[in-house]
């Protein structure tokens, strides 16, 4: 719902300093450079296009590999601080070169392939886990003008590509010819297939509101302001809040992060599908996992947190891609926080949580989004929308959690004291 009537265009009101404008254009620099060189050298059009595509891909891969290095360091340091430790601080100032040291260690390690492994599949699996993650990263809008591949059906493409990850995890588990990887891959396949459903269903509300599956237009739709200052992010609507929470939980499960890290549940099945991998192949798994995490968090931001748009009017002078990466950091830090606190759920609880809680809730967001849409625009309509959708969401939620799942509620225990 956008309150177009009340919308005030503030973009001209703030006189953006030159530095911010330059920064806004920074991600385009390699592309512009290639265009300029092509123009100077009178290159044929097809070559210029090809080079432009290659450069766009290189920028995405380069940026996210840097992110991978940084986030692996930040994750270790943050978790360390949560646990009252220092974390890596020996390699370089504040341990900044730790990812380099890790990389060298991984690359120089012996590559062990078990005797009983399917050699070819064992090799393919780690490669296969990186490819879909990179492909999915290609369609996300990172800034106002920074969309590596602007697909009309970007969201569909994202889900289609993202589903490939399951396959590679399963191949890894199967090809290792070992028991713990086997168990891990079985867990992974059932978990990821199940959690794909709430992920998809809760995204439907967003598509309904935007009327498009193109990710840039979804962000465009959210980048307007209600009453002139509150941004029109989907998470600020009743259906969006529920859908966003469901989507976020499903994100964590898709990325195999705590508390849904069953496929690699360290205390139970050693390292799941990665048990029999070492050296560079293990590093690839690690990388694929992180790139997948960036992709799915990026999608969450795009769909519910307004993508590259600023949270309040008057903050647009900050380059849009900085907003995107800032939000990415926040989402990943939240996941780290959760990882540092909660324990892992069991397989049957995981499934029950998905099928009996997340999927009904995500299904509810579809009619709720419909009601919200037909309430129309304007202040009173907004009030009406909240008034109708909130009971519509809360009553079934109470029914689901408190009444239907009551037998799962923890019992209060009695403890006695003997003299």
């Amino acid at each position: 719902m956008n309150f177009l009537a009340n919308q005030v265009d503030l973009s001209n009101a703030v006189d953006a300093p030159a530095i911010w404008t330059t920064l806004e254009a920074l991600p385009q620099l390699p592309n512009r450079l290639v265009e300029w060189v092509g123009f100077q050298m009178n290159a044929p059009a097809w070559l210029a296009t090809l080079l432009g595509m290659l450069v766009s891909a290189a920028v995405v891969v380069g940026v996210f590999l840097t992110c991978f290095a940084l986030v692996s360091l930040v994750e270790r340091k943050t978790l360390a601080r949560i646990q009252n430790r220092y974390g890596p601080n020996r390699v370089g100032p504040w341990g900044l070169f730790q990812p380099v040291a890790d990389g060298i260690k991984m690359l120089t390690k012996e590559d062990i392939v078990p005797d009983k492994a399917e050699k070819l599949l064992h090799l393919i699996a780690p490669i296969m886990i990186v490819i879909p993650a990179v492909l999915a990263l290609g369609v996300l809008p990172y800034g106002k003008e920074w969309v590596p591949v602007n697909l009309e059906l970007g969201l569909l493409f994202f889900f289609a590509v993202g589903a490939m990850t399951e396959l590679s995890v399963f191949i890894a588990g199967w090809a290792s010819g070992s028991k713990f990887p086997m168990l891990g891959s079985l867990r992974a396949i059932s978990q990821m297939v199940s959690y794909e459903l709430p992920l998809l269903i809760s995204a439907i509300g967003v598509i309904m509101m935007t009327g498009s599956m193109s990710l840039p237009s979804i962000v465009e739709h959210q980048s307007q302001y209600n009453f002139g200052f509150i941004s029109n992010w989907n998470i600020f609507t009743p259906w969006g809040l529920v859908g966003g929470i469901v989507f976020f939980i499903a994100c964590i499960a898709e990325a195999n992060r705590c508390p849904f890290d069953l496929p690699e549940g360290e205390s139970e099945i050693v390292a799941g599908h990665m048990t029999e991998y070492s050296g560079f192949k293990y590093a690839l798994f690690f990388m694929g996992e992180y790139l997948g995490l960036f992709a799915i968090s990026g999608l969450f931001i795009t769909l519910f947190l307004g993508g590259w748009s600023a949270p309040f009017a008057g903050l647009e002078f900050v380059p849009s891609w900085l907003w995107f990466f800032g939000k990415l950091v926040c989402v990943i830090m939240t996941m780290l926080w959760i990882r540092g606190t909660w324990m892992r759920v069991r397989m049957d609880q995981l499934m029950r949580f998905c099928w009996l809680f997340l999927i009904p809730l995500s299904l509810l967001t579809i009619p709720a989004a419909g009601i919200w849409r037909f309430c129309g625009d304007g202040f009173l309509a907004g009030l009406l929308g909240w008034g109708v959708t909130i009971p519509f969401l809360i009553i079934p939620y109470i029914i689901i959690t408190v009444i239907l799942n009551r037998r799962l509620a923890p019992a209060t225990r009695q403890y006695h004291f003997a003299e």
Partner: protein
Amino acid sequence: MESSANTENATASKPPAEQKWILPGWGLYQGLVVTAKNFIQSYYKKDRLTTVQYPEERAPISPNFRNFPFLVHDGDDADAGLRCTACSICEKSCPPQCIYIVLDRDENGKSKKRPKVFEIDLSVCMNCGICAEVCPFDSIYMDNEFELSKDDRFGDMLYGLDRLVKSTDYHAKIRPEQAAAVAASRKAAAEKKEAAAKAKAERLKKKAEEAKLKKEQEEKGGDAQDDADGTPTPPSEKGDTK
């Protein structure tokens, strides 16, 4: 033991009402609050972040801390001032039997009352301190040196006399109280011994003068040498007086 009627419907600290299932996921939020508190406080509270950055800074060692034994020598000359008499009491008491002693003998096979070989195997020693406890000669004590890792698995781990013997000054440095007490008791014992020796010399003089008097007097002289303040009398000294 009777099971009492004293039943408390509570977990350890909180009143029962708080433990009820108020909101689904309430316990999860509580946990998040705890970890967030730890995360933030680790930046400014010393009792949260207790890690010591080891090679650069070191946690203080308590004066009682013990690690690997060493032998004490008096004076400046490690060879001459060695207190150890190779009596093998520590060798026998050592639970993992990591001490190996060979008594030094002269050409005639007579004991020199000092060890020819005194070896402790660091890789076997479990730093229990029983050797230091049983030693009657105030000779073996527990060191507080703990950075003992070595390159060589065999030769370097076997500590011979050259690496085991340390001065009384070192002992006084690492354990001032214990060293002072030992020094005092040794001084007292030495004075006593001196006095006894003097008495003995006088007696011997007397004996020479009053030649062929009663033999019982000699026995009494032996009794006077017993320690009163608990320092064990070395058996060898007892042997001397007989």
